[in-house]
């Protein structure tokens, strides 16, 4: 009973950190999708105008906030789970979560090639980072 509660705590914290990372990356990507090619914005508004456009985008700002929270949540997760488990698990879950979130929320066309790449990256990162 104690063991299953500990496992639940470890995987709960790993899932929470991964979910924050996915939310952050998808919101930032959504914000950039909304703004369009930054090179075009820079050509018309200059570098400062581009930076202001990016920072002023609500999705980008919320995404960056999620990434900051993710950093602190990661520190908390590492106090519960061992680094050798947490680092590869969080990285792999984040890559898989990003692919699903990109398909559902950003309506990206995730074809077979990209699913295969996501699976390879998730397993590859787990093998390297452990």
């Amino acid at each position, binding site marked *: 009973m104690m063991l299953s509660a500990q496992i639940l705590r470890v995987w709960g914290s790993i899932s929470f950190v991964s979910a924050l990372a996915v939310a952050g990356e*998808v919101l930032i990507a959504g914000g950039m999708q909304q703004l*369009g090619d930054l090179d075009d914005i820079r050509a018309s508004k200059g570098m400062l105008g581009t930076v202001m456009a990016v920072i002023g985008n609500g999705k980008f700002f919320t995404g960056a906030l999620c990434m900051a929270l993710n950093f602190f949540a990661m520190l908390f997760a590492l106090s519960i789970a061992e680094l050798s488990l947490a680092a590869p698990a969080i990285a792999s879950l984040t890559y898989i979560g990003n692919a699903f979130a990109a398909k559902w929320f950003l309506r*990206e066309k995730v074809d077979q090639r*990209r699913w295969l790449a996501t699976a390879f990256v998730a397993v590859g990162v787990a*093998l390297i980072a452990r």
Partner: protein
Amino acid sequence: MKHALKPSQYAVLVAIMLTASVGDSLLSRGMGQVGQVDMHHLGLLWRALFNPFVDAGIVLLIGFFACYTAALSWADLTFVMPATAFGYVVIALLGRFWLHEQLSPSRWAGIALIVCAVGFVAGGPSRTEHPELDQMDAGVGR
């Protein structure tokens, strides 16, 4: 889906691969020199800001975030993702050939998988077209 990337956009993807991995390595080396930071030694964080490795790492990680943000403005998240993962390969290869660390067979397998993933995605289109967004852009431009 749109496909063709400009040479400058490929350069941004390469910068994503290199800046994150080298930046993390520099931060790691700098923090190793500074010492372990805990609740009783928070002052060490201030000292860390004066460590050249930490400073170089921070600059590279800011560069990474700028390149990553720029890439997401012209490419899909699922297209850029393998490029970010390639940073793990760079760190592993730096460890092998620069620091002469031994890489286990499972790490070599991980490197091979990520290289394959980059190959799969690089051969395909970079961006999904969203006609309604393009129409909105055209409307904004008028």
